[in-house]
Structures are given as structure tokens and as C-alpha cells.
């Protein structure tokens, strides 16, 4: 049982009211509701917080100060900050499928029953076995792993890497799918205000009062920023009251939207912003139908960056001990959460605002034992509260070490003269100036610039439409934040065409922001950490310098400085400051690393929205889908389409059996197949035929009205893009089909050809793929079947409607339809197109009409078997790597016209005689099975690079031949019919001797389709 629990329970034992359950809760004050106790657990121990707490404030209220272990040395760590910059207090939130590793306790809102656990420790947080790493710290210097673990080579994967991986990493991911869902929203506004502190509120007020559409985003549950964490006054009002009034006024404005609990994580091109709203993270489980989080994509005309600033820690020995905190955080815990992070405080500051901590702590009932300011002189009056509190005031001094097991119990202070003394305290507040949050304005590759006045980087060139205000701009005085915010809000509204009134200047209580940064305190005995989470110490930066890793990016990558989950929010500046000292360069010359989105880590699920599981992509159903589903079809995915692969009947046990029956029925009677997925493009206009002639490689000018023709489309580089048909329905009216896989690509290609290559042509086109249902009716009884559904006036006799005829007809009593006499199966066949809304009815009508002939529906498998039997090439052969000649279609290329790809297809490598060309294959032993993807090698040849002669593209079991057959691409294939090669398939243990033949196994004279 841990000491933390002992303390908590001993404190809790006699308690009667919620407040006294928490030994470090102040008696009054803070923006919390003491009447609403919220029980929660940490590492299995029960505690109680109150409404308004974060997990961090609740743990501190219960006296829990050790909350985590560091990444490399497993050093005990406490809570450093009170905001999203927290590097130390990372916990696993919740359990089971909702477990969230690496959650910053400082931003996790407490709710009743919250279960939390520390991470990266074993067996317990207090007694962590890997804390022995700290003893080996001299070995584990930055980059040590680049210099060892090299021998023997095979040990890396077997031994070293598994050990390193197990020790590394932070929290544990949930093991089950995320049970929650996420929304995605698109929003537009005139003025986007990023940050709801004083500057942001003033900006939103000014813009909103002018009538602009405003979106204000703020990370916290309640906007207000530092106004909620400090004791300030604006005019006659307390800062918190002013903030509450401002929010109230904004909420009353119809065109203002306040998004609280929302982090603006990234700035993107063209005025696009990404934000995440944590809709349900402050409750145990989202309400029914509510998302866990909502991802906002915001398009804004103007943006006002009022994201504030992050306080800088000091770098000194043992600065990572639990109890050492940022001064601003100490004030936030006291003022906002009514929690004292200690009983006896010391303050280590280099800035005037650090001194504010003294009065706040004293007011909350704590003792302040010392204020250490490394400056030799400070403004008169600054020390007043400290003097009154009886604290020691140590100017020109620095904290150089800490002690405590593991929580802070004492600090070592060195005076300017070099004298050291130990001072007992259990909380040290560090104030070392603030860094404006220059992340968001840097996302569009703009570099921040150095502001010597505040010794920090401030926004440089801002993205278009963005202005920075307040602390984000380096203006740390409240009055500047308010006035600057109001001016920027009014200006942004004016830019959007709204007349804005400049508000009168705000007045505040007296303030000062004098500051002299101290990048590194004098050396003490303990390790002085720069990046807390990644355990990068000042000595690691020295080592990087020694080894030549002096460029900022090198420093970062070699030491991992700034690469932890906080992305260096509290560490980058100190790292740069130390590197500047080491190289003797001014700090701004050392530079900054590149800030990248997201500002704080964003859940992957939130960015994916609803696009997961079955909803990952749209599902397209064919017109016959309902019938097929009801009749037990097995479906196959084809792009976004679901197509019936085959239709098993009762008693059929094997898909091959079903497919064999479907093929045999088509070849002996009649079958129907839904081919609506093919691309259909309607092309009209005086010059339609000219465009078609340019796009297709075979000749079309001679195509008469009422005829269809096979079409080959080449890419500009001379390879085949797709094949299909073009039908001339009228003099200036055509319909072109494309394969299912290339439907969109061919449409795109036509648009490209028209808009870019031949803009002078008078032609219009549109995709009608989804407007027409299209069914293939194939087999000796196809005509008989069709006759029963078409309107009597339509003559489809062989003489009136021969092979490749096409016409607009009517079916079912006047329903407009199109009939094409084309065949993929090699049988007498038609394709009938009806408006998609009639598709289901037409499908059923055809089945009824063919019933007496024994009609079968057939799917893509039978379709494929029959096309392979016929030697028709399809997607497996038209794979973007084959020419028309490779596919046996070379003879169709027009000689007397120009077309896209004509010259490029004549490039030497494309007419190389050795190129693999389409052949048919059949196993020599008819019992052998062959598989697509097998390579061709000589019968007696040892497999090797030189032996590779091509590959098998498609295979099918042919019911006609009673054996497996295939189509492949073979070097010199046209000359090798009758030769034997191996279909070599080592990845499936296949090796079959096959005979090469012509790629057509059924009815080579094509008599059946003309009867």
C-alpha cells in the first residue's frame, strides 16, 4: 500500500464534509463547487474531488504529488503545470476499450467515478523497478544507442530492440475498438478568435458588437484564461466577474458561437483551421447519440490569435522533483481550483509576475518561506507581500538543487557570493518569464522572431488574415491584452465589412512585467532537466554540442529535446538558451525548431469521423441488389460496388459448382447478369464524333447511327487505359462505356481531353452510370427471352437487329430503354438498359420472361469464366502496363487518324518484339489447377531473374473444357503456341506445366454470337 494512500486515508478518516476529505483544499475560493463531491480513483486508490476540478487539482487537493515516471530514467515526477503544456503528469484515463493513455492530468476534467492510473512503471508508481535506470544515467546519455548494440547484428531484432521497446513507450493503448463515435463539422465565420483569455474575449466582444459572425474557441471548460487563475481587477470588477459578463454578452449575440473545451490544433492553407471540441470527455460515457468529440473544420476570413503564453521553468539540479511547479500553475491551483499545492512555499523567479505567487499563497493560508530572485535589483514595492509574509527575500540568488524522497522537502539556494544553504519547503514555484504561443502562426511555415524586450519569440510574418494579440504577441500586461484584443476585434470586423466602434481603454489593477531570463542556474549536484518528459538534461545538450549536433534540428533529434507529447512547450526555449551559451551565439541566431500541427495531440478517431467500419467508404448497390440479396447471392467488392459474384442454389456446396452451372446454363439456354456498374458516358454535340475519334485508338468516324463498336482508349503515354464500347444513338449523340474499375478515370480523361487538349470542339458529356440500369442477357434463348418484355413494335430479329446493332426502344409498355447487341460471353447476347428506377422491375421481368427457358442469374464469377474462355482481356490484363499490341489488339489501332497515345505507343520499348504478349494456357495434366500471378519459366529452367518470361493474369475453371484454363502475358507469346512452360507459383507452392495456346478456348470463329 502506498504512502499516498496512507496519507489520504489518514487525513480522510475523521472527515465529515467533502472539503475536509481533501487535506490540501482551501477553505473557500476558487471556481469549484464544494457541494458536489466527485469520487475517483488513481492507481486503484479512492479519492474525492469536487466539481470544477481537473484530475491534477483533485490529486493535489488529496496530497498526491507523485503522479508519474519519466520516459528514460523513470524518475518520479509530479505536476508541473495547470494547462495543456504539461510534460509530466501523464496518466491512463478510464479503463477497457475507453482507456486513454498519455492523458495530461492537468486538462482532464474530473467526473464521478473516473478511474485513472499512472503509467510507465512496474510494479508500482512509488516502487518502480526501472528507476534503476537513473543509476545508469551516466551511460544513458543522449544518443548512446547510436554507438552500441551493434554486435552481433542479429541480436538487434532478437534481444536489444525488444528490450528497448519494452522499456520505452509511455501508456498502454486500449486493446479493443474505440466504442465512441466522432462528428465532423464544417463552419464558416468572419472572425475566428483563438483563445478565450482577456485578449480573446475583448476581441470577440468588439467583433461581435460590430455584427460580425464570430467563432471563439477556447481549450477550457469555461473561457477566461489567466483571468480565472489570477486575482485581477478590470475597471471595478474582479477579473473573473468581467470574464463571466463578457461570456454572457457573447452568448446573447446571435452570430457568435463559443466553442469551449475546444482546441484549435492547426492552421492550414487558404484560411482553413482545424479544431477539436471535447464534447463528452468530461463525462463517463457520452450521452446517447452524442459524439465523444467533434472535429471542426473552420473557414474564416479573419483570425485573431489570442492563444496566450506558456511559462518557462528553471533549469537547475533536481528541478524535476514532485513539488517543483510553475508559479503560474501554483496560482492557478490556488485561485481557480481552491487547492494548495503545498504548505510551505518557496518562489524562484526572474520575473515580476512570479512575486504574485506570494500574496496568493498567503491569502489561501499557506506559508511562504523564501523568494529567490536571480535579479540583483527589483522594482520597489514588488517585495511588499513577501516582507509582510515574513518570507526571506534572496536577490541575486539561484536555486541549484532540491531534496526529498521523492516529493520536494527542501531546496538548496546559492547566493551570488557562492554560499549555499538549504531551505525547507514542500512546493517551489518557478517563474522564468513566458513564451508567447507561436505554434499556430508558425504552421504555415512562417518563422517567429525574437523580441529582446521579453526575451522570447513572438509571431513573425503571420498567415494571411491573422493578427496576434495579448500574450500570444508578447504583451503580458492585462491592460495591453484587453486594449489590443479590442482593437484587433474591431479591425477584423471592419475588414469583413462591419462598422466597428473602438471601445474605450480598459483600466486594471497595477501590474508590471519586468523580466530577465535565466536559461540555466548554476550547476548543482542533481541532474538539471530541460525536457522533463524525455529526460533531456542540460548535460545532454552539452554532449550534443560536443558531438557537433548544434543546429536546432540536430539538437532536437539527437537528444530528443522537444519530441515528447508536449512537443517542447516547456523545454525548447531553455534548450536553445543553453545551446546559445555553449556556442556563444545570440539566442535568436540558434533559431527555433519548426512548429507543426497539432498544437496538442488529437485523437485519430476524431479526425476520421464516421468513416470507419462499414461506413469507411460508401457502398454502391446495383439495381438488382435487392433481388440478389433476397435470393442468396454471394457478393464481391468491386471498388465501392457490391456485385453478385454467384447465386448458389439449394444443394450446391461449392462456389465452383454454382459457377459451373451458371456458365453451362448461359451457354446452353440463357442467363442474365447485372452490368450496371460499367461506366456510361453520354456524349453529345456537333463535334462529339471528333472527340471520340481522338480519345479512342480505333476508328469511329465511320460508325453509323444504330451501331455499337468495341473501343480502346490509350493513355497519352501510349499504354492502354481501358476498353469499352461506343454506340451511336443519333447523328450527334453517343454513349460510351468504360470498365467498372476505370469508370471515373475514363470520364476524367474525356473531360481532360476536351477541356485541355481540344477545347474548340463543340461537345458536352456527362456520366450517366447511375441513371441507367444495364443487364446482359446472354445465351441461345436470349432473343426469345427478350421478345417477351420488349414492346411489340420493336423488331429484334437477327436481320433487323444484327450483332453490334443498338437502338433506343421501349419495354414493358412504353418505358424508354436502350438495347445493344453486344456480347462478352461469346453467346448470342444483348445488353438492355432501362432507367435505373425501373432496374429492379426489369430484372424481375426478364427472369420471369426467361423462366420457361431455364434462365439463370449469373454473377461476376461466371462473367469472368466466360470472358476467359473467349480470351477477352479485362482489368487483370489491362493493368496499365500493357500496350494494345501486348493485349493482341494491335491490329485495331487506326492508321489514318490521330488519337491520344498514337505517337507514344511507337516508342522503341513499346514495340520491342520480346514484350510479353497475351496467350492462352492450359495445364498439360487436365487435373492440375493453375493460379493467376504465377510466373512463366521454361520447363527445365532453374528459377532466376533471367528465367522469368511473363506471368499468368487470369484463370478460370472452364465448364466447356472441363479443366482450368488461363490467360497470360508471355515473351514472344504469339510465336509460342503449342510450347510448354511452367506456371511457377512458389508463394502458393504451385508449379504446373502448361501448354501455350491461342487466347480463345470457345467458338473461335465467333459463330454463336451472330445467330
Amino acid at each position, binding site marked *: 500500500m502506498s504512502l499516498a494512500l496512507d496519507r489520504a486515508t489518514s487525513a480522510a478518516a475523521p472527515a465529515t464534509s467533502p472539503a475536509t476529505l481533501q487535506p490540501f483544499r482551501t477553505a473557500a475560493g476558487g471556481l469549484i463547487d464544494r457541494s458536489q463531491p466527485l469520487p475517483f480513483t488513481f492507481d486503484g486508490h479512492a479519492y474525492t474531488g469536487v466539481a470544477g476540478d481537473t484530475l491534477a487539482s483533485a490529486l493535489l487537493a488529496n496530497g498526491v504529488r507523485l503522479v508519474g515516471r519519466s*520516459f528514460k530514467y523513470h524518475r518520479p515526477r509530479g505536476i508541473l503545470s495547470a494547462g495543456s503544456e504539461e510534460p509530466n503528469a501523464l496518466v491512463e484515463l478510464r479503463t477497457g476499450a475507453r482507456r486513454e*493513455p*498519455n492523458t495530461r492530468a492537468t486538462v482532464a476534467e474530473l467526473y464521478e467515478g473516473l478511474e485513472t492510473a499512472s503509467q510507465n512503471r512496474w510494479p508500482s508508481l512509488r516502487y518502480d523497478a526501472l528507476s534503476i535506470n537513473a543509476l545508469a544515467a551516466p551511460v544513458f*546519455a543522449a544518443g548512446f544507442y*547510436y*554507438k552500441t548494440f*551493434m*554486435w552481433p*547484428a542479429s541480436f*538487434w531484432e532478437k534481444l536489444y530492440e525488444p528490450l528497448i*521497446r519494452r522499456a*520505452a513507450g509511455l501508456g*498502454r*493503448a486500449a486493446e479493443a475498438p*474505440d466504442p465512441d463515435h*466522432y462528428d465532423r463539422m464544417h463552419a464558416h465565420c468572419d472572425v475566428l478568435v483563438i483563445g478565450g483569455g482577456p485578449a480573446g474575449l475583448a476581441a470577440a466582444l468588439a467583433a461581435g458588437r460590430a455584427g460580425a459572425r464570430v467563432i471563439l474557441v477556447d481549450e477550457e471548460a469555461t473561457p477566461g484564461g489567466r483571468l480565472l487563475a489570477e486575482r485581477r481587477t478590470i475597471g471595478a470588477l474582479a477579473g473573473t466577474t468581467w470574464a463571466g459578463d463578457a461570456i454572457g454578452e457573447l452568448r446573447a449575440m446571435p452570430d457568435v458561437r463559443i466553442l469551449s473545451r475546444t482546441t484549435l490544433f492547426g492552421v*492550414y*492553407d487558404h484560411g482553413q483551421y482545424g479544431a477539436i471540441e471535447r464534447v463528452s470527455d468530461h463525462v463517463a460515457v457520452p450521452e446517447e447519440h452524442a459524439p465523444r468529440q467533434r472535429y471542426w473544420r473552420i473557414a474564416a476570413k479573419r483570425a485573431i490569435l489570442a492563444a496566450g503564453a506558456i511559462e518557462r521553468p528553471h533549469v537547475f539540479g533536481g528541478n524535476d522533483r514532485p513539488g517543483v511547479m510553475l508559479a503560474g500553475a501554483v496560482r492557478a491551483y490556488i485561485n481557480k481550483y481552491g487547492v494548495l499545492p503545498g504548505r510551505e512555499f518557496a518562489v524562484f523567479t526572474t520575473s515580476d509576475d512570479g512575486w504574485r505567487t506570494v500574496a496568493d499563497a498567503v491569502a489561501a493560508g499557506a506559508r511562504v518561506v523564501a523568494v529567490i530572485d536571480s535579479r540583483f535589483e527589483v522594482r520597489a514595492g514588488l517585495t511588499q507581500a513577501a516582507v509582510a509574509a515574513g518570507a526571506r527575500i534572496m536577490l541575486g540568488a539561484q536555486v541549484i538543487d532540491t531534496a526529498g524522497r521523492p516529493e520536494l522537502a527542501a531546496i538548496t539556494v546559492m547566493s551570488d557570493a557562492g554560499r549555499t544553504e538549504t531551505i525547507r519547503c514542500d512546493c517551489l514555484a518557478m517563474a522564468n518569464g513566458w513564451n508567447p504561443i507561436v505554434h499556430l502562426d508558425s504552421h*504555415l*511555415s512562417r518563422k517567429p522572431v525574437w523580441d529582446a524586450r521579453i526575451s522570447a519569440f513572438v509571431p513573425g510574418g503571420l498567415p494571411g488574415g491573422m493578427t496576434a494579440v495579448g500574450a500570444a504577441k508578447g504583451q503580458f500586461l492585462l491592460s495591453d491584452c484587453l486594449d489590443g484584443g479590442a482593437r484587433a476585434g474591431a479591425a477584423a470586423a471592419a475588414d469583413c465589412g462591419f462598422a466597428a466602434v473602438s471601445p474605450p481603454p480598459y483600466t486594471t489593477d497595477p501590474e508590471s512585467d519586468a523580466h530577465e531570463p535565466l536559461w540555466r542556474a548554476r550547476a548543482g549536484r542533481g541532474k538539471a532537466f530541460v525536457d522533463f518528459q524525455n529526460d533531456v538534461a542540460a*548535460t545532454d545538450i552539452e554532449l550534443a554540442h*560536443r558531438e*557537433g*549536433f548544434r*543546429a536546432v*534540428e*540536430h539538437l532536437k*533529434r539527437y537528444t530528443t529535446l522537444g519530441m*515528447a507529447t508536449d512537443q517542447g512547450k516547456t523545454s525548447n526555449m531553455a534548450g536553445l538558451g543553453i545551446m546559445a551559451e555553449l556556442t556563444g551565439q545570440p539566442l535568436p541566431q540558434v533559431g527555433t525548431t519548426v512548429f507543426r*500541427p497539432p498544437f496538442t495531440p*488529437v485523437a*485519430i*478517431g476524431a*479526425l*476520421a*469521423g464516421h468513416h*470507419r467500419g462499414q*461506413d*469507411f*467508404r460508401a*457502398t454502391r448497390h446495383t439495381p438488382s441488389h435487392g433481388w440478389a440479396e433476397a435470393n442468396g447471392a454471394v457478393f464481391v*467488392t468491386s471498388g465501392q460496388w457490391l456485385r453478385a459474384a454467384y447465386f448458389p442454389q439449394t444443394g450446391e456446396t461449392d462456389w465452383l459448382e454454382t459457377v459451373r452451372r451458371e456458365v453451362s446454363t448461359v451457354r446452353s439456354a440463357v442467363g442474365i447478369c447485372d452490368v450496371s456498374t460499367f461506366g456510361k458516358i453520354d456524349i453529345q454535340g456537333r463535334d462529339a464524333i471528333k472527340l471520340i475519334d481522338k480519345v479512342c485508338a480505333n476508328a469511329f468516324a465511320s460508325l453509323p447511327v444504330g451501331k455499337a463498336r468495341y473501343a480502346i482508349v490509350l*493513355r*497519352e*503515354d501510349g499504354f492502354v487505359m481501358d476498353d469499352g464500347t461506343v454506340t451511336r444513338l443519333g447523328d450527334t449523340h453517343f454513349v460510351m462505356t468504360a470498365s467498372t474499375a476505370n469508370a471515373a478515370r475514363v470520364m476524367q480523361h474525356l473531360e481532360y481531353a476536351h477541356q485541355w487538349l481540344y477545347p474548340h470542339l463543340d461537345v458536352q458529356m456527362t456520366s450517366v452510370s447511375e441513371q441507367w440500369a444495364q443487364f446482359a442477357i446472354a445465351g441461345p434463348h436470349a432473343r426469345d427471352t427478350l421478345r417477351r418484355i420488349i414492346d411489340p413494335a420493336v423488331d429484334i430479329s437477327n436481320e433487323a437487329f444484327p450483332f453490334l446493332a443498338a437502338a433506343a426502344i421501349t419495354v414493358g409498355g412504353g418505358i424508354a430503354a436502350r438495347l445493344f447487341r453486344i456480347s462478352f460471353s461469346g453467346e448470342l447476347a444483348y445488353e438492355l438498359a432501362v432507367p435505373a428506377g425501373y432496374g429492379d422491375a426489369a430484372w424481375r421481368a426478364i427472369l420471369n420472361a426467361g423462366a420457361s427457358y431455364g434462365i439463370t442469374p449469373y454473377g461476376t464469377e461466371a462473367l469472368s469464366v466466360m470472358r476467359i474462355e473467349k480470351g477477352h482481356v479485362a482489368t487483370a490484363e489491362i493493368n*496499365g*502496363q500493357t500496350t494494345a499490341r501486348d493485349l493482341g489488339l494491335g491490329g485495331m489501332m487506326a492508321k489514318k487518324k490521330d488519337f491520344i497515345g498514337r505517337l507514344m505507343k511507337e*516508342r*522503341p*520499348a*513499346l514495340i520491342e518484339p520480346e514484350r510479353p504478349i497475351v496467350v492462352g494456357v492450359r495445364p498439360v495434366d487436365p487435373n492440375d489447377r493453375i493460379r493467376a*500471378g504465377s*510466373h512463366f*519459366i521454361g520447363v527445365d529452367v532453374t528459377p532466376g*531473374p533471367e*528465367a*522469368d518470361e511473363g506471368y499468368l493474369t487470369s484463370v478460370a475453371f472452364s465448364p466447356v473444357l472441363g479443366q482450368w484454363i488461363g490467360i497470360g502475358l508471355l515473351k514472344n507469346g504469339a510465336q509460342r503456341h503449342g510450347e510448354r512452360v511452367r506456371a*511457377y507459383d*512458389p*508463394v502458393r507452392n504451385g508449379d504446373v506445366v502448361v501448354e501455350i495456346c491461342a487466347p480463345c478456348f470457345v467458338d473461335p470463329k465467333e459463330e454463336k454470337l451472330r445467330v
Partner: protein
Amino acid sequence: MRYSLLSVLQQAFKGQRDWTPQWRDAAPKASYDVIIVGGGGHGLATAYYLAEQHGIRNVAVLERSHVGSGNIGRNTTIVRSNYLLPGNVPFYEKSMQLWERLEQDINYNAMVSQRGVLNLYHTDGQRDAYARRGNGMRINGIDAELLDQDQVRAMVPFLDFDNARFPIQGGLLQRRGGTVRHDAVAWGYARAASDRGVDIIQNCAVTGIRRENGRVVGVDTTRGYIGAKKVGLAVAGASSQLAAMVDMRLPIESHVLTAFVSEGLKPLIDTVVTFGAGHFYVSQSDKGGLVFGGDIDGYNSYASRGNLATIEDVMEGGMALWPGLGRLRVLRHWGGVMDMSMDGSPIIDKTHIEGLYLNAGWCYGGFKATPASGFCFAHTIANDAPHALNAAFRLDRFATGAVIDEKGVGAQPNLH
């Protein structure tokens, strides 16, 4: 100082005092036998192999920023040799073999981790395409296994097998594939090249390439003119800009590719997995971050940052493949500028200008090629003729038609 466990332990006792810069931060000399423009992985590897294999040590690598600041430090660290077409297969296999001995060759632990690369398939057509690829690999002596659904499930049980829009049918596995710590490759080659006499000159941007009588004589830089008998360009991402200095228009477009890393996590996934029904690939770094990515943004750009539409697409792919990712968080995303060539394959060749050599067009597959690229480029420069391994990577192949189009999408760079 040679790197070893012993030296690390010794320095632990000496407060790490004796380490010296890993490579000399050299100032430019008046002239060199060979200047390599570009201090990324390919440029540094080229310099290393020039010195190591060809004894050419009077070499400078010019880097406009700092070593490794380009795509060598921005990629998703995947190495593999599971290529399809004859022009690529032996080259990438050579690269894999060089990765396998890299650390011993250059005495630098780049964490070459042969944890396997698993490409998933979701349709029969994809399965057959992977069989074609795998069989081609096996014929070339490269390891490849075609896994069925059960075998994939045993390896990566947390993927979506039950409710997927595009159910996983299986995968093509190359066990020798894996990941390599990308920065360490740049640093390791820099150190090894520097140790062999190569001058690594940082913050030295090339502003012009000087020619006399049709041959290269040197380069103008932000640090002055530097003479050279031969100049090799290895500046993927900026190849077109450098080539424009000698009025060459390359068959290359520049595109941005976004990569992502999650927060650090305890070990979750022990291999590299690529989704076959969307563009998404993922592995886990030794430090614990999930490293993942997807498609290029699709428009021409020199800005190393991507936009939300592609980011959403990548996350959707991730969630479709692995629904347990939902609550894990993206820590950072960044962009790299890709030399997208017209057939998706690279160029390592001489140019029409005597003494000027080109290494370009790596699309988003350049990292895995680093050792072989350096090996072949060094050979091409030293011998003024390509090595057999880069014989297919000619600049004139778009004229001859001998393209190496693995995806079969033709001369549309944003589709490769």
C-alpha cells in the same frame, strides 16, 4: 573514436568528455574532384561509397541547411525490397542487402529492424497481383510469403477482420523488410564519409552550376565558388530547381506528402502494415510512437506541409484498418516535398552535360533506396557509366518508353 559498448562505458565514467563532433563541419576548399549537392541520405551515402569503394576522397557534400534536413529526416522509415518490375527488383534488393550490414560497415547503430513488411489484400484481384509480385521476388531470390486471412490475423489480431467495409483476405509479407532509424542513417553516413576524408559543408546553398565548353567546372554557392571536376545532384524535393540552373527540365513534379507520429505507447505492433483498401501504412518506432502516413496531397507544391483533406483521408484509412486507434492521438504531422517522376521510379544517370550527374525522382520511396542509391550513384560518377543495378533508371527512358511503372498509372505523377 570507434563506437562500441566499451567506448560508451568508458565515457560514462568520464562524464562523456572525450566525444568529438561526429563529422567535421568543413569549410569549402577551392576545388574538389567530386561535389555532391545535397547532404541528405542519398548524397551522404554517395560520398561514402565514392571514398570507400572508389577511393575518391577529394569530395565535398554541399548542404544548404544542415545534414539530414530533407526527406531523410521526414519519412516513415520503412525499408523493403518487395518490388514488381525487373528494373527495380535487383536495385532494391541490393539496398536491402546493404541495410543488413550497414551498421557494421559504418560503425553506427541505425537500428535496422527487420520486423517485416506486410501488405494487405482485400480482393481476389489484389491477391493475384501480390502473388505476381511475390513470385517475382522469389524468382529473384528475395523472401516473400503470401499469407491468408488466418495467418494475418495471427500476426496482427487487432486489425478489423469482422466489421470491415473491405475485409482483409490476406497479405504479402516480406520478413526482411522493416524500419531503420532515419536520422541515424544521415548521421552515420556523414560520420563515415567524413572519417574517409569527405568534406561535409553545411549551410552552403548552391546558387549556380558553372559550365565551360559544355562541361561542368564548379558550382556557385552562398559560401563562394567551388570548383569541381564532377558534380552530382542528389536533392530530391528540389531536383527541378537545381536542374533549372543548367536549363534542364526534368520529368518530375514536386508534391507534398504528409507523415504522422502518435504519442509514445507501449509496444503495440511489431511489423509494418499497409492497408490495401485505402492509403494507410503504419509501424511503431522503438521510442513508442506509431509512425504512419498515406497518400500525397495531389497538387504541385514546394511547401513542406499538407492540408486537412489528406489528413482526414489518412485517419479514415487508419480507423478502417485498426479501429483501436480511435483514442490514440496524433502528436505531430509534417510534410516532405517529393520528386514525383512520370513513372513512379527514380533516375540515377549521367546528364547530357559532361561531368553532371543526376540522382532524382524518388517519389515517396527514396528512404529505403538510400544505400543502393549511394552505391550506384557513386559508381555512375566514378565510372562515368551506370552500374548494372541502375541501368534501368535512365533519364531517357521516357523517350524510349522503357518506363518502370509499378502502379501502371502512366505519366501522371500524382497517381504514383
